[in-house]
């Protein structure tokens, strides 16, 4: 039986790494070698200053992702690695969306959409407004759908960060 045969799924890999230069390169290099496209990656400090946490979202079949995880765990700077089960994990992403504002009707629309999505208007100018939305990727996608009907000028997303429940 060949190894690479199952279906594609989204996987969230949480990687605790040494906090020092070059680590992101080593991790990214592995994905490059396997020709693997990273959907999103977020890196930041943890409760211990010597470690950082990378949260990596990938699309791939189970076997390939499992293999990648094994290879990742061989990188000397990787302290701990876990494949997160989305059902038991808190997932968050932040998006900043700058919208075109034609008139005051649009301005008030944006305000009320932002409210529905528990977002915040963080900047306003003559012809733009910037909204910050925090939530699961689905929630952000839903907001973006509405936002695009208004007209998105620019957008930036942080990529997913995640932590397991309980324990």
């Amino acid at each position, binding site marked *: 039986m060949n*190894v690479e045969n199952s279906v594609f799924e989204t996987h969230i890999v949480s990687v605790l790494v040494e906090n020092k230069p070059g680590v992101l390169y080593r991790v990214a290099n592995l994905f490059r070698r396997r020709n693997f496209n990273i959907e999103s990656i977020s890196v930041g400090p943890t409760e211990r200053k010597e470690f950082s946490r990378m949260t990596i979202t990938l699309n791939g079949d189970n076997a390939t992702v499992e293999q990648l995880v094994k290879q990742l*765990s061989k990188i*000397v700077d990787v302290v701990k690695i876990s494949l997160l089960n989305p059902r038991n994990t808190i997932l968050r992403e932040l998006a900043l969306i700058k919208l075109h504002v034609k008139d005051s009707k649009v301005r008030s629309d944006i305000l009320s959409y932002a409210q529905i999505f528990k977002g915040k208007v963080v900047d306003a100018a003559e012809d733009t407004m910037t909204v910050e939305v925090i939530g699961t990727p689905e929630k952000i996608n839903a907001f973006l759908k509405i936002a695009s009907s208004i007209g998105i000028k620019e957008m930036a997303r942080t990529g997913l960060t995640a932590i397991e429940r309980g324990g």
Partner: protein
Amino acid sequence: MVIAKLSGAQSLIDSLQKEGVEVIFGLPGGAILPVYDILYESNIRHILVKHEQSAAHMADGYARASGRPGVCMATSGPGATNLVTGIANAYMDSSPVVAITGQVPRTMIGKDAFQEADIIGITTSITKYNFQPRTVAEVPKVVKMAFKLATSGRPGPVLIDIPRDVQVEIDEVDEVEDNHVKVRSNVSPHPLQVKRAVDLLVNAERPIILAGGGIILSNASEALQALAELLLAPVATTLMGKGCFPENHPLSLGVVGMHGSPEANKAILEADVLLAVGCRFSDRTTCNISDFCPDAKIIHVDIDASEIGKNRLVDVPIVGDANITLSKMYEMLTKCLVKREDSLWFKRIQEIREECSSIEVFSRDDGLSPPKILKEVREIVPPDTIVTTEVGQNQMWASLYFKAYKPRTFITSGGLGTMGFGFPAALGAKVAKPDVPVLDIAGDGSFIMTSNMLITSVNENIPVIVLILNNSMLGMVAQWQRLFYNRRYSAVKLVNPDFVKLVEACGANGVRVNSLDELKNALLQALKNDVTTVIDVPVSPEEDVFPMVPPGKGLKNMIFNALKTSSILTKRSSKAPRED
């Protein structure tokens, strides 16, 4: 505890000595000068190479022959990039090599300074890890860590890139505790998995052991032999595993794979349980993987968890050191099994051997054909002789016809297939084992690539023997062109120098032989010489290596000649191609 104020260079050399380093293979240059200055008065032997690639291959050969890490050294920029092929080679074959490179001063890194190369970036995917100490204090820690990493778990190369100003700077240096370094290594197998494997093995009717380079790396040959004899299970090896099981043992099948022995390739397909240890199911071993033991239950033991399930799904995965795992299996098995003296399977193996010995392996040349040469060579050289090979037909003929009896006596570039590896690796092996004869089985094309090392071999008194199977061709490429490209010989014909003259110009012994008798005399003389001897044997430019599994095909599609793609065992004749 602060022990001393030292320069980075001094600290480096001191640390290397603490690791027991006795010899460094290298070539100096600007960015590593401070280290060479300390080396000048240290008692570490330095062997000057003619090209840094050879320094890495020598360190690699030294490591494989001795089991101790080999150290090579080069300057920044071109020195460092010249090491790259050798490092990649060590990486593919899991050889513990520590490479040390000079780097431009810290303030100039990243600014395209003279002789700057981003060797950390370049070697990240061909090392287990690489370091660039930015302070003197880091140096001893980095060295300790480098040796630990290179030699632990699945061994491999580690690179230390030291900026020139760190070499020069003087600072307080701490003693490094041994426990400073924690390496993750799952050496002991999970007992439940071992139990599952043992259950499979006890009930197997046709067990086969596939032994890879991991057996050699973990010194598991004795454990392997005990287990094989207990189960009466025949042993096939990968190319990297060659020598880990005596090839004159009644249970030895030889090497399996694209140019594997007929009996190994045939028998492995009949196995109902395959115990694969310290191997990685590489494409040259399995050939078309979907045809590789499709119905066998597979137990895969490897210390590197990422190898398990990578190329082949297995039934019982076991992450563990080969020696420990095999010993545990043996222990458990002795409790439920008496040593088998005979079995239907063993009889069947004899039958396969007989069938295979009657297959005519096509060989054009009645005179000095490489198979005959190599069988003859085996008769002449002592059993503990270390053989290295170059890459191409010479390597595959050596694998097929030169039997290896002991671990660490067959050294070849298995993973990367690096032409030019064999000669410097032979020199490195000889440095590690000065009392054992070392022989490089070479092709003319490969030998030329690192033949400048003749000078080093003479200057540094490292006498080895090189046997050039000289077909005036890039033979293996020519074979593929003959078989699969309609004999369109594109860029494979070699116009060689007169090897005897070339060798003698370097101060070594050169001799050309034209018969098996002459070969025998030359070899006997070479074994006595205290200088490197190169024996040039002209062979036919048309000879192919057979058997062969054509690319993309499965083991069962092994062919024995170029005329017919006859499937195994359909062609018979009284000519025995290989005897045991």
